Every structure is written in C-alpha cells, then in structure tokens.
C-alpha cells in the first residue's frame, strides 16, 4: 500500500516548518506527496524539507512521486525552486522570486558558488532588495560552511534563497542538513548543556564551538554583524535541531532571543534566516 501525504493550501505557511516529511526506514516502498492544493507563498524551508525528503527516500531505494501544485503561480515557483528535480527546474527570470533554487552542497566549492550566485542575483537583478546582498552572501557562506563542516552526512547540505514581498520585502534563506545536529556537536565540548534549545542558543554566541579551537565559533556572530551593517529593517533567524528550537531577532539593533522546546525531534540542523528590507 502506498504512503500518501497531502500538503494543504497552507502547507508552506508557518515559516515553512509546518507539515511532517518523515525520514523513516519504516515507510513503504512507494511514497506520494500530493502538493495539488499548495498555494503561494512557497517558503524556502518548506522547499528544502521536501527536497531532502525526496532525496533521502530515493537514496534508500523508494519511489517518491510529487504531485505538483494545481495553482499556476504555485506551480511556477515550485519548478523554479527545484523541489523535485524530476519535475524540471526553470531558470529564474527577472522579476521572479527564486534567487537560489534548492541546491545540494557536498563540498566547500559548492558553498562558495552558492554564496556568489546569491550575491550576484541580489545586487544585479533585484534592485528592490539589492542592499541585502552582502548580508545574504555572508549568511549563505558562513551557515553553509558550518553545515558542510559539522553536518557531515552522505546527502550533504541543502540551501534555498527566495525573495518575498509580503508582509514586507525580504530575502529568506533556508539551510538543512542531516548531520549530528548542533546540540550534540556542542555537547562534545560542553556536556553540561543538556537542554537542546539552550545548547543551540549557546552555540550562536561568539567563540562557543565544539571544535576546541578558540578562534572558531564566530560564524553566527558574523552573519548578524553583516546584517547590522546592511540597510534592513530586521533580521530573524530560527534554528531547529534535535529537540530544540531557537529564535533570534534583531530589530533596529535590538536583539531578542527565545528558546522553545521543539514540537518534534528533528534530525540534523535546520535554519531559516529572514532579512527584512527597510
């Protein structure tokens, strides 16, 4: 019997975190994800999560069928984002919202290419959000560098970057990997940080690293530093790893952070980062 998951019209809401795409060996050989009712906006985290689901199960030898959205606009973005490479990927045209389709990263050269491509498109093709180019470049470079370094797994890491118009103009990026996750990585050095959410929060502080090198652990700080020196209204990062969910917002240089227990355990590390234009 096939396993069928229907994604509702609002399946891409709630920051793209909503909807369950299980990575389980227990699932049958035939999987269907019905995105027929999906509507815009399609957020990058939704796209990354669904793509990882597709890639992981296909690597496990399962047949995965994605039923594309019926809504024309949603279908166009769905294809541009390369959520299912077999459905076909259309190169983003001027005026479209896909800056970087879901892109698999298996080495640091791929990270550099993704960061450069993001900056180029923002600065030369999208004048309404071009001031965010440097901040987006730094975010893709540092966060994907981390994902490749610390999130080692056979699939690598995945990144997507989009421009969104509502509720404000913003650039949103999503990164996911199926590595050991931030809490477990950081506990190699700080075993006392048993709560996953607080372990993630600590990991975003300067010079806190699981590597043991006192000069490391600066990537998150630099991502926010680049945001603070850009012309933007706000920056908001959410990290879900293991059973922890961490959110850090910077609005007009005021930082606010929240730690929540996650609704469910999530293998690896999943990050959304929104740069909201002035």
């Amino acid at each position, binding site marked *: 019997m096939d396993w069928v998951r229907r994604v509702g019209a609002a399946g891409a809401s709630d920051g793209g975190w909503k909807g369950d795409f299980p990575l389980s060996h227990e699932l049958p050989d035939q999987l269907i994800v019905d995105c027929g009712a999906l509507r815009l906006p399609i957020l990058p985290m939704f796209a990354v999560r669904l793509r990882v689901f597709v890639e992981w199960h296909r690597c496990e030898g399962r047949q995965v069928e994605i039923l594309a959205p019926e809504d024309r606009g949603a279908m166009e973005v769905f294809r541009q984002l390369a959520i299912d490479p077999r459905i076909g990927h259309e190169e983003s045209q001027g005026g479209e919202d896909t800056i970087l389709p879901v892109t698999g990263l298996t080495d*640091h050269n791929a990270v*550099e290419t993704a960061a*450069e491509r993001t900056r180029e498109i923002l600065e030369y093709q999208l004048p309404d959000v071009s001031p965010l180019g440097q901040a987006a*470049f730094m975010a893709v470079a*540092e966060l994907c560098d981390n994902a490749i370094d610390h999130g080692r797994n056979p699939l690598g890491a995945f990144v997507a970057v989009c421009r969104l118009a509502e509720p404000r103009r913003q650039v949103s990026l999503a990164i996911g990997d199926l590595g050991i996750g931030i809490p477990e990585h950081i506990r190699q050095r700080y075993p006392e940080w048993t709560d996953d959410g607080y372990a993630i929060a600590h990991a975003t502080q300067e010079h806190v690293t699981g590597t043991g090198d006192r*000069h490391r652990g600066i990537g998150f700080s*630099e991502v926010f530093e680049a945001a603070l*020196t850009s012309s933007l209204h706000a920056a908001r990062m959410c990290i879900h790893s293991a059973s922890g969910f961490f959110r850090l917002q910077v609005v007009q240089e005021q930082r606010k952070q929240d730690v929540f227990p996650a609704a469910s355990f999530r293998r690896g590390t999943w990050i959304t980062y929104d740069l909201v234009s002035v």
Partner: protein
Amino acid sequence: MAYRYALAEHGLTLATRPFGRELRDDLVERAAGEGRLELDFSGVLSVSHSFVDELVARLAQESQAGAVDFEVAVLGTTPEVDAVIRRALGRREAQLAQAA
C-alpha cells in the same frame, strides 16, 4: 622585497574556511624568504569572515609570533571587505603591516 598575491584571480567573492586554509598553506611556501607578503584584494567584492580569519588574520598572527618569516600587508580592499578583515584581525588581536 615583497611578494604580491592578487586574490581576484580566484574570483570576485571569496568564501569558506577550507579555501582560506588552502591559500594560506600555499602562500606560506611562496612568500618564505620574501620579507613581506602583500595580499591584493583589488577587484574582490565580498569575503566571508571564515575565509578572512583563516587566510589574513591567522597569517598576521603567525607573522607577529615569528612563525613565518614575512610580514603581512593588505591592499586594494573595498570598505566592505576592509570591515570584515578588521573584525577578523580584532578577534585575533593581530595587526597588519602598514600597506603603503
């Protein structure tokens, strides 16, 4: 004597810690005995902090500590690139030679 290295040969944007490490290892050999290494960022539009920390800040720190036999200077930076380099140096508390 000075050994000048044009980073723009590697692209307009430079990122990732492993790439910075690769260039640093290469330059430690090339600049040995030259007295001065000039890192020329002319044409480079963006750099990531990890790249700069591994290449520039670590080299500057090693130069101060006498671990390499040349001083390190930076030239041709845009304000954005310069800001990232200064932050990386500040975090390592290293200094560059005057790039005159």
